[in-house]
């Protein structure tokens, strides 16, 4: 049988790293083939070898049964391979059709750009695959999900038969993910072969026909969708049993620590983003804030760490009002934070792991000696934290930028927990993390709760919220439209609240 892609014994070595170790795969025509693995397992390297961006050190590539030598992206495109990168390659100020035809423009009368033909062709191809776009819309104004659709159309326009989607859902909301899956199904119907790279097991089980698990550059197994489950895949991926449910100790919530009263916060545009919300957060409790992105989460988090002024209302910690102060004042009063964007707010990337581990605490007694940094204490402190939090590689002097995403997040968690806060505000703490690192962060959050801290968890991942929270408040359009206990909460109920189709009036705001 002729395969769309066949790889034989592909090995790729980077200095000091065996990125792909003797990988052999056969991908059938017209199937959705998923490759899963933790960050750094070698997924992207393998895709780049197929796409001709890297040359393998050894091994053979066959496309449609033909051996490919000296692969380059140009050759790969000619052979009908198209790649949709995680970070889109679009010109934001161009319209949809201009982006799609870029480099293959239609010309009339020798030199004039034929806009009409371009628009028509784009319309034709978008109808053919059922990918709805308005060809004249400016790409920069489109939501991420639609931009991705434009990327896919661009690839299809160039005649791709094999599509490589590199972590396509990482940037999407749940709704957009659903739409993407519809797209993939439509493509499959058109007999396209899809290579789907991901580390989200649920998604993979939903969309793929076969699933290949990579770990440390090796193929750990190739499973048919029907014959496997999340638990098995997670074990193959991480190399041990992964706890998908994290047990919590039975604890009665204690006295309230954080109180938010009639809070109004303005967005950047000067319109209210948070409209009079109230909640209380108690000891031994995780309060989950669920909601679709853009319903005020960003503004709420920023107000809670002092980066955004409050328009009206109060934030009280241990009964003390601390509205409108600087971030350092919030921290001094018992707040700690895990930010949603670790590379922007969480870490100073060119700093070492060690330096990042005490960012913000440099004026505390232990970390300084007079006006100087106390390098002895810092050395001991950081090697302890690296050990305790299993930050790899075990070298606190490495640049934090050189660490994997999961280990970067561990650095942040280590720092924030070491503040010994009263309230830990975790905003999408597992965004972009793989299974192992997600498990680690979840465990730490529960550990904090069990030790008597109050944890505020703001997340777009409903699953995460439902698994960890003792209580769940749903944010819709800047208001809390309902508050449920963990037992009461079902996915359907929360979904209705999140979409604003249902609301409880001031119920259970305790």
């Amino acid at each position, binding site marked *: 049988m002729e395969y769309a892609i066949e790889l034989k014994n592909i090995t790729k070595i980077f200095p000091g790293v065996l990125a792909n170790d003797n990988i052999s795969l056969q991908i059938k025509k017209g199937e959705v083939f998923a490759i899963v693995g933790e960050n750094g397992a070698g997924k992207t390297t393998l895709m780049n070898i197929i796409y001709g961006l890297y040359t393998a050190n050894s091994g053979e590539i066959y496309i449609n049964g033909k051996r490919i030598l000296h692969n380059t992206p140009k050759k790969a495109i000619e052979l009908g391979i198209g790649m949709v990168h995680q970070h889109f390659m679009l010109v934001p100020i161009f319209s949809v059709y201009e982006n799609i035809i870029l480099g293959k423009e239609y010309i009339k009368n020798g030199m004039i750009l034929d806009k009409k033909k371009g628009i028509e062709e784009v319309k034709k191809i978008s109808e053919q695959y059922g990918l709805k776009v308005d060809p004249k819309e400016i790409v920069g104004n489109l939501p991420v999900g639609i931009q991705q659709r434009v990327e896919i159309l661009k690839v299809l326009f160039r005649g791709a038969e094999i599509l490589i989607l590199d972590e396509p859902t990482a940037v999407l909301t749940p709704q957009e993910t659903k739409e993407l899956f519809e797209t993939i199904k439509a493509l499959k119907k058109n007999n396209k072969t899809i290579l789907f790279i991901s580390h989200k097991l649920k998604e993979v089980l939903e969309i793929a026909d076969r699933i290949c698990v990579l770990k440390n550059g090796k193929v750990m197994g190739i499973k048919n969708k029907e014959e496997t489950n999340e638990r098995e895949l997670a074990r193959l991926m991480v190399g041990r049993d992964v706890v998908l449910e994290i047990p919590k100790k039975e604890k009665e919530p204690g006295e309230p620590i954080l109180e938010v009263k009639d809070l109004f916060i303005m967005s950047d545009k000067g319109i209210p983003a948070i409209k009079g919300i109230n909640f209380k957060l108690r000891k031994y409790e995780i309060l989950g804030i669920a909601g679709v992105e853009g319903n005020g989460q960003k503004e709420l988090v920023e107000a809670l760490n002092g980066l955004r002024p409050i328009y009206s209302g109060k934030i009280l910690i241990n009964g003390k009002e601390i509205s409108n102060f600087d971030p350092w004042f919030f921290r001094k009063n018992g707040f700690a934070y895990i930010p949603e964007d670790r590379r922007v707010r969480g870490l100073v*990337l060119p700093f070492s792991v060690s330096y990042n581990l005490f960012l913000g605490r440099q004026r505390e007694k232990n970390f300084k000696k007079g006006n100087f940094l106390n390098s002895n204490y810092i050395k001991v402190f950081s090697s302890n934290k690296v050990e305790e939090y299993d930050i790899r590689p075990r070298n606190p002097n490495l640049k934090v930028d050189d660490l994997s995403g999961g280990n970067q997040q561990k650095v942040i968690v280590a720092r924030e927990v070491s503040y010994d806060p009263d309230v830990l505000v975790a905003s999408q703490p597992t965004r972009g993390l793989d299974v192992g690192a997600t498990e680690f962060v979840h465990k730490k959050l529960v550990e904090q709760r069990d030790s008597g801290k109050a944890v505020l968890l703001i997340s777009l991942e409903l699953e995460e919220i439902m698994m960890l929270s003792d209580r769940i408040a749903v944010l819709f359009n800047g208001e809390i439209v309902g508050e449920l206990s963990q037992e009461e909460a079902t996915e359907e109920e929360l979904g209705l609240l999140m979409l604003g189709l249902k609301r409880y009036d001031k119920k259970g705001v305790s």
Partner: protein
Amino acid sequence: MKNLAFDNINKILNWWNAKKEDISTFLVPIISIIIAFFVAAIMIKMTGKSPIAAYKLLFQGALGRSLKEFLSLKQAGEGILKGAILTLTGLSVTVAFKAGLFNIGAEGQFIVGAIVAAYFGFKFNLPPIIGIPLILIIVGVTSGLYGAFAAWLKIKRGVHEVITTIMLNWIAIHLVENWIVVGPFNILRYNPQAVLAGTPYISDSSRLKPLFAGTRLNSSIFIAIIAVIVIYIIINKTVLGYEIKATGLNIDAAKYAGINTSKTMIVSMFIAGALSGISGACMILGTEGRYPGVFRPGYGFDGITMSLIGNTTPVGTFIAAIFFGLLRAGATGMQLIGIHKTFADIIQGVATIFVAGQTGIKYLLFLIGEKRVVKPREAHDGSY
């Protein structure tokens, strides 16, 4: 045998790949300067003169005709003196850079420092050991505040420091040149018979005296070296330096972590201003002896170049400043065969362009690592 050779080459390449980021940091400025010399040589050739003869004169002019003359520092002293002044303005730009601020205002801070030094140098008549440090402290505070003002405007009003520091340069230049020097602090007020334009001469006790006869080199060089050491320590060892670097490298994370980034920026611009001011003071107390009627040596702007070529590190800035100080002093020698002394500026300018475009040089350097030696494989069957 063959395998061993491959192993060794691979070992070297692996070492290079691991270290290339660090090493290229040093190599880029050096390669840039070498390229600049080549470009300048072509220009000299185009004017019909011999680049070799010109560079020989340049070299002799900078360091001396013989080893003995070099060691006596008679010839090199002038270049080192220029280097000291450039070091201070360069450090000024470096410190601001570490906090993520682009201090184009070194020139204005330099002028403020110069006029303040001229005034107090004239007023004070204290023993040098007390008087000169006192003048430098007053200069540091005044110019420091002048520098910090730009940071304050950025924090309070959101005006970019590049705009404000450029404007503050012209404010300083015109206030001093067209008002203070010709008005309230003109030499004619103190000595009606004077024929010179400018301010009165400073008192003898305020002067930085030449270190030895036959050269103008004075203790500015020690001030510069102390400044390099102090700034190095501040940046690398102190809590303040840590905050400055965190602010400069990622202000969002610094703010989020609770670092007072506004204060950090103001303090670093204060230090930057103080350094430029002290540079101006060294010029007045050392070589000029007063604030002349027209005084635009441009050392403040050159500080930007020194900092960039020095890779925005204190020690790098120092090396670059001494190098270009010597180069400028030496360029005077090239006038013997009719090449203008500002020729040194061409080398400085071209070197800056290449340092600024260092991605290109780095790319070429990194190519070395990309060409990996791979052991021979089985023959391809050549089907595609």
